[in-house]
């Protein structure tokens, strides 16, 4: 019996990673390693998007893209040693190959920031995805108002992208606040405290400021409270959320928060659009 | 210069390798005279006979299977039979055939493991099977293939290879898949040349020529080469003894200088295992197995304990042909799920089965609440220990004048391994000592 419409193998393209070679790798901290990879063609990504990184035999993990969008066939990222796959990636160096697919998700839209004062709030590894946007903003510095970066981490030893932070501070047209929760007897020239603390001192103009933030789950609630206190409306706050993602394309269900898929609908959201989702913030 | 054998020395082999469980050999010689020979069981106690008290009938075989990984099927079958005897359950014909298959698969697995992995390296002068993987690749590959076949056989019949769960008191929880069973039969047929190659390999080994007559004890059955069932027969007797009388067969007795119970029947000691079975029931072996015995120079009665390895190979051939025939029979009859329920009640019963290492007895008593109140297991190795000691006491003085300490050590280890002792099973052996008559001078080990 021949069956109408049957026996046609579908073209299977998704979920297949391509291979990219590591050009540069460097330990930023004891548990965060920086990678720069060369690609066959530019990623064509937006800041805030992510890629699925593969190690054959171990699986995949979602990793934020750190480099700004553009024509360079390059991918920069910072990978935290926090699991079986990332532990192995930490042993990789120049010349080693890894699998990639993506970019995935909705990132930041630069149009939301153009002409405004821009405040970046980064907690720990949260600087990794935000660096993509910060670099994009600085590249077009003249098209924005004030540009402010609050970057916090637990101890001085855990700061990532230190040369970038230094270089941005030296420009003179970007306000950089670097702080740690605890200097722990280590040399530290920045401030000590939580990322919420400098917000009041920035004397933000609520009508002009747009905020982009990314950090550990525990950070959001307190920052959002502080921003509300500074009069900043939820529709001017963009949050980059972390969830467990297994497929990256809105199928596997792991990153679901209410009716949204973090991977597909996010990971960047306008706060006012998800403020009602109680599971989005702790 | 004094020759090696004139000096006084102690041979100590701690944690004898390539045996199941932990045992040590200690031999003291003084000026060429053996002062004592001692085998220490250094296995820690696990108290199976104590802690199974309180368990229900169906739990017993499932748990006592854990006495020994390598003999798990044997412990399961003997204990299942004992429990059934205690509470008056009679399994159906299909169940008995499946149990026989399970037992055959274990013989194939255990004998292949013992011959290839534990015994053969001695003959090749290799410390283990691993170096043989480089020097005798086909031998090792064949060993692995035959072992895998036997393991898959156990898994198809019993549900899995180790501690299988399909057999239980009264019946089979899930009957084997007929296609899978047919596939095993085909693989066994295809493997016949490999079993033949095993025979050829063993025919090249030089078996030490020592002989010492002893009593050989095994099950015996009027209709078949007794492996799963039968009455008990000693080579010194006419007729048979019932399994229920096992206590007066093992005659476990305490010796002043040892905490273990020793076994003896019609003489000072007896031997169980492949050699005992082949000696007692040679005529019932499959013709191909009888041919194999002839080819390997095993003529019954054979009184060389090192020939136990050869007897194992004879049984490998027997079990292979027997399995093929029995699977055929089972498939022809067809397998069906049986309905069976087991009602716990009071009673006592013993059960015995042949396991690769010899005769195994289990005995359980259940109280009015249907829970176990007393348990006993007499394992092949504990029955053999007395005989091993007597072999050593006999052979060491014979070898001492001509052998270096090193060779003597190796030969004693080989002798022990020839018995394929399973010390893991030592449910109630402790500090077994082989002493040359008087109070021995050694430390407890």
């Amino acid at each position, binding site marked *: *019996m021949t*069956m109408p419409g*049957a026996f046609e193998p579908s073209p299977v393209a998704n979920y297949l990673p391509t291979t990219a070679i590591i050009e540069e790798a460097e330990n930023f901290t004891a548990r965060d390693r920086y990678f720069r990879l060369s690609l066959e063609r530019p990623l064509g990504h937006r800041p805030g998007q992510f890629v699925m990184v593969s190690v054959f035999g171990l699986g995949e993990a979602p990793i934020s893209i750190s480099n700004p969008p553009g024509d360079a066939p390059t991918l920069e990222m910072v990978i935290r040693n926090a699991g079986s796959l990332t532990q192995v990636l930490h042993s990789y160096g120049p010349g080693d*190959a890894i699998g990639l697919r993506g970019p995935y998700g909705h990132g930041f839209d630069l149009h939301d920031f153009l002409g405004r004062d821009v405040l970046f709030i980064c907690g720990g590894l949260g600087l990794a995805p935000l660096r993509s946007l910060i670099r994009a903003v600085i590249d077009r510095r003249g098209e924005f108002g004030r540009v402010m970066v609050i970057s916090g981490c637990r101890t001085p030893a855990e700061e990532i992208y230190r040369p970038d932070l230094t270089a941005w501070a030296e420009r003179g047209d970007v306000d950089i606040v670097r702080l740690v929760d605890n200097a722990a007897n280590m040399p530290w020239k920045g401030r000590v405290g939580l990322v919420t603390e400098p917000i009041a001192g920035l004397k933000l103009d609520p009508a002009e400021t747009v905020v982009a933030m990314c950090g550990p789950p525990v950070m959001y609630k307190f920052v959002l409270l502080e921003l509300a206190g500074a009069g900043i409306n939820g529709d001017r706050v963009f949050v980059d959320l972390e969830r467990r993602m297994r497929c990256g394309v809105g199928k596997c269900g792991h990153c679901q928060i209410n009716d949204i898929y973090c991977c597909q609908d996010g990971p960047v959201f306008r706060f006012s659009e998800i403020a009602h989702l109680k599971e989005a913030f702790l | 210069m004094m020759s090696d054998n004139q000096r006084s020395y102690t041979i100590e082999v701690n944690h004898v390798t390539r045996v199941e469980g932990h045992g040590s050999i200690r031999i003291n010689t003084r000026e060429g005279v053996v002062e004592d020979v001692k085998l220490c069981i250094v296995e820690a106690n696990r108290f199976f006979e104590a802690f199974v008290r309180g368990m229900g009938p169906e739990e017993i075989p499932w748990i006592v299977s854990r006495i020994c990984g390598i003999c798990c099927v044997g412990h399961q079958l003997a204990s299942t039979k004992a429990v059934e005897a205690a509470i008056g359950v009679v399994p159906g014909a299909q169940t008995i055939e499946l149990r026989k298959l399970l037992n055959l698969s274990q013989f194939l697995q255990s004998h292949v493991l013992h011959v290839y992995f534990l015994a053969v390296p001695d003959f090749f002068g290799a410390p283990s099977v691993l170096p043989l993987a480089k020097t005798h690749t086909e031998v090792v590959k064949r060993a692995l293939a035959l072992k895998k076949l036997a393991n898959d056989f156990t898994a198809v019949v019993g549900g899995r290879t180790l501690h299988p769960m399909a057999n239980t008191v009264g019946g089979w929880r899930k009957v084997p898949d007929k296609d899978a069973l047919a596939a095993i039969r085909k693989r066994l047929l295809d493997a016949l040349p490999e079993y033949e190659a095993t025979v050829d390999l063993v025919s090249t080994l030089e078996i030490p020529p020592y002989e010492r007559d002893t009593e050989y004890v095994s099950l015996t059955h009027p209709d078949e080469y007794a492996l799963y069932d039968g009455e008990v027969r000693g080579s010194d007797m006419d007729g048979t003894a019932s399994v229920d009388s096992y206590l007066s067969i093992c005659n476990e007795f305490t010796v002043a200088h040892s905490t273990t119970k020793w076994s003896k029947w019609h003489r000072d000691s007896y031997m169980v295992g492949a050699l005992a079975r082949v000696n007692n029931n040679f005529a019932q072996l499959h013709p191909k197995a009888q041919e194999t015995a002839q080819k390997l120079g095993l003529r019954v009665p054979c009184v060389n304990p090192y020939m136990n390895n050869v007897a194992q190979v004879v049984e490998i051939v027997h079990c292979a042909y027997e399995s093929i025939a029995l699977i055929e029979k089972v498939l022809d009859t067809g397998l069906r799920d049986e309905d069976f329920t087991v009602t716990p009640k009071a009673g006592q019963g013993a059960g015995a089965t042949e396991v690769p290492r010899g005769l195994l007895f289990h005995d359980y008593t259940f109280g009015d609440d249907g829970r176990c109140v007393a348990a006993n297991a007499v394992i092949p190795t504990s029955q053999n220990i007395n005989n091993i000691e007597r072999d050593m006491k006999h052979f060491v003085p014979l070898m001492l004048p001509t052998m270096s300490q090193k060779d003597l050590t190796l030969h004693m280890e080989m002798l022990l391994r020839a018995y394929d002792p399973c010390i893991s099973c030592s449910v109630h052996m402790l500090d077994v000592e082989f002493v040359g008559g008087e109070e021995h001078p050694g430390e407890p080990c």
Partner: protein
Amino acid sequence: MISYLADERRVIQWIRHLAAETPVFFPMPHGKVNFRFERVDEASELQFARYRPTIIAPNSFLTPTKEEIFKYQRVGPGRYELTPAVETTFQILAGVRPCDLKAIKLMDDVFADGERDPYYFQRRTNTSLIGYACPAPCDEMAYCESAGSLDWRDGVDVMLTPVGDRMLIQAYTERGEALTASGDFDPCDDPDAELQRHLDERPKPFGRQLHAPVDELPAILERHWDSPLWDQHVERCFSCGTCNLVCPTCYCFDVKDVSALDGSSGSRTRQWDACMLTTFATVAGGHNFRADPAARQRHRVKRKFQYLNERYDSGAFCVGCARCGRQCTTGIDIFDIVNDIVDHDRAAAGGAS
């Protein structure tokens, strides 16, 4: 659409005939009280009268519990060759009840969302559905009518509808027409009348009834985020995931690689996961977004009655098959949870007015 009439015996003959050429899966008794879809062979006992939703829903034939998505093979330093899995076996699922038919339709929506999932659709394309309209609730647990799936027939190739002691056979697709052509059935001139008879013969109400219409549930559930009921309904929960795994509209999966010992080759697989399992929402750093079983239960319930219908605009994602309540060892039933919430909502509204 072509319609026929035949008695059940003839229909079963026809299914056997199909099974001789093509793998056909049909719900058959399994164990003491359960059913599962099993491949039809000569020995299979086919009947429609006795039925209880199968342990696992037929969606396992479209998204297997574990499936390979591609193989990889190292071909040089850092170079890998990938071979995607292609599944082209044609299969027929027969005797599929309306609840499961609706679930398959919902899965079509899920896997077409965003990037269309090729693995799902290659199986879906190669699967024919022969549905069976239930003349009576399969047992006292079913609430398919209340969940809005009882009369579902979208997506079937052939629908079998019992009418009296005969069966109305309707081919809805070209493929269904090809399948039924071999049936040697009597043509049916007025299928609508037969359908009406079927409806008239059916008990009313049909099975258990939710205490509120499913389209009101999203709003009701939204009002009870912090309800103590969530805690009450997990007191006996093992977080074992059974409710997810037996659910025809649960589709979450995990991705795993299975490699050869030396890592040079292997395959990437995906296998079913379950949001009731403790670590489902744990991220790499160790934070668990739903560590509390009550939060996981709330997520599951809202997913079936609120989140996914909002996302896919499809009506409830619960099809009322009641598998989750039936298979739960401690009898936690999503039907009871929802009704409890509805009752509390009504009581609160009553108290306020």
